[in-house]
């Protein structure tokens, strides 16, 4: 590739042209101080467009920092001669990868931008080697899907508010819906699995009840959980999940509540536990009993005898 080193007026650089930008909106703050003290060591790479303005290939953050510093002109390396767009993309990616690992968001955007240039037969391998992700179709599809999400959602993937897998689960939703989920997750502290669980529950409730996602997320029950000042973000998350499960599985929830009541009525103590079969589908009930010595053992047997005579036992064993 051939370059002309040049001094270019900043105003002639089209900073709105994001063709080669992979990262989210550049945050120049970290560079401003450095450029102020030592100057611009590594000049950005530009390409002149047909309208004679300049398109940024590498150096979005550097140019943004220089603008913030009030510079009018900037030293650049101008790509000249016959160079394909794909070559310029490769240059932009390699420039990024030369000084840091590129993020999953950048990989997603890279896939989105590069796909049309790469023949389908070796697309996966080429993109994986360029963008630095494993040659695996499933991984590829997940990262590619991220490219559909709005920028604020992607930004929260980078901030770890939203896990990568949860973000992938948001891909089938409209940008507005994805943003609604994001608002919810910002107010909670949830592991990846819990985020996915909430996304799934909300989506299924919306399908079951013929509602928009937004309507489910903005329901008064959810609001009241989120607005409780006495709960921390963890507790709010647990309460919200419990509410969504009850709404998604109403008959099961009712049975579970009945069983909890019936078990309470049996007055079990911490040494004797009755565990119903999963989902009450059939299969055996489990009785768990702990004891330290023979005396304890006899006491537990008395407790068991009392349970056996308690009419509430029937309610536990015949839950519906």
């Amino acid at each position, binding site marked *: 590739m051939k370059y002309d080193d040049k001094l270019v007026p900043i105003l002639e650089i089209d900073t709105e042209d994001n063709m080669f930008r992979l990262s989210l909106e550049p945050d120049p703050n970290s560079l401003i101080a450095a450029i102020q003290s030592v100057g611009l060591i590594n000049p950005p790479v530009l390409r002149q467009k047909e309208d004679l303005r300049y398109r940024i290939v590498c150096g979005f953050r550097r140019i943004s920092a220089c603008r913030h510093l009030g510079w009018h002109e900037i030293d650049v390396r101008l790509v000249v001669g016959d160079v394909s767009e794909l070559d310029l993309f490769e240059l932009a990616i390699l420039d990024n990868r030369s000084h840091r690992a590129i993020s999953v968001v950048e990989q997603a955007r890279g896939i989105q931008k590069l796909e049309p240039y790469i023949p389908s037969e070796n697309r996966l391998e080429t993109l994986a080697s360029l963008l630095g992700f494993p040659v695996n179709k499933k991984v590829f599809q997940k990262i590619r899907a991220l490219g559909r999400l709005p920028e604020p959602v992607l930004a929260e993937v980078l901030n770890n508010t939203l896990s990568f897998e949860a973000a992938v689960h948001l891909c089938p939703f409209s940008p507005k819906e994805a943003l609604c989920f994001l608002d919810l997750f910002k107010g909670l502290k949830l592991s990846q699995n819990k985020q996915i669980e909430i996304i799934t529950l909300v989506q*299924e409730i919306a399908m079951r009840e013929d509602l928009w996602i937004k309507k489910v997320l903005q329901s008064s029950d959810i609001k009241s959980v989120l607005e409780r000042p006495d709960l921390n973000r963890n507790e709010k998350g647990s309460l919200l999940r419990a509410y969504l499960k009850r709404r998604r*599985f109403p008959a099961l929830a009712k049975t579970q509540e009945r069983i909890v009541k019936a078990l309470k009525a049996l007055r079990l103590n911490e040494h004797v536990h009755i565990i119903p079969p999963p989902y009450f*589908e059939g299969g055996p009930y489990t009785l768990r009993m702990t004891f330290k010595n023979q005396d304890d053992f006899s006491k537990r047997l008395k407790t068991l005898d009392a349970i056996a005579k308690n009419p509430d036992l029937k309610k536990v064993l015949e839950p519906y």
Partner: protein
Amino acid sequence: MISRLYIDEKVKDEPAALTIQERLHTIPATVVTDASRVHEALADSTDPVAQGKRVLFLTRNRGPFLRKCPGTRSYICCGYHILNIGTYCTMDCTYCILQAYFHPPVLQYFVNQEQLYNELDHLFSLKKPPFYRVGTGEFTDSLIWEPWTELSKTLIPYFASQDRIVLELKTKTSAVGNLKCITHNKKTIVAWSLNPPSIIRSEEHGTASLKARLAAAAQCEAWGYPLAFHFDPLIIYKDWENDYRQLVRELFATVSSKNIVWISLGSFRFMPSLKQIIRKRFPKSKIIYGEFIPGLDNKMRYFKPLRIEIYKKMVAWIKELAPDVVVYFCMEDEEVWKETMGFVPKDRGGLPKMLDDSAARFR
């Protein structure tokens, strides 16, 4: 409709392969040395599950044609035997388990039929067990193959030649034309899976309408065939009570309960992997959003009280109009039987015996 025909090199000269090729002569055909060529062709498609319905692969059955329905120990099994004539289906029901069962799913028809009839001869020659129920509709729809194979014209008389084993042809089509004027000796039961018209419209794509299925059933009844019906899968949705009640009425307004060998009830259940497929292929379908829990066989099933409720009502509606007809559950446990029917099959010699006895009545 079939858009591509593949023929396994090893069976290309089998009579059934030649007949089918002749009947499908307008469709491009390729002889392949192994199945992977067919699978590769499907893998490139954006929806291989749908594409597999348009590609017919004529091949041989490497295993036995006859096998016992796998069932499971956790639920009561009916002791059915499968006659594996081919796999997959040209219709496209949202809930079809075959979408997730075969990898990749492809229409395969087994043309090494000499082996099929040898196995039947062997079965017919056995003295034990005294009765046997065999069906072709487990891995496919029994009658979709008729236009190209006319299999029923051979299979039905074959079963008619003996007295101990019944063949059940289970379908959602109305393709019964080939069943006319065939000696069946009541040893072939023609069976339909039924659902209300709204479910047929939204979930049973490409199948015959309820009207057409019932008309075909009435036609088979007129030709003297015993009939069976499967309310399977029963689906719980907003109007299910009205719709299923009406469906039961329509059934008995069309055919006589005297000619019904059995009616089965089975609520919608599915392998967990099917959920993603349905989500992707039928994003508007709501059937996977019922209250499903993992069953003892690891399939997702409606939470038991919901199953019991729909079964109780179905049984009551059926018994109101056909008190003597044999109704049974497909893969349910003793608790469900007891709650809905008031007895468990083992009180009556077991489910296989109940069904065998019912089939044996038709002579």
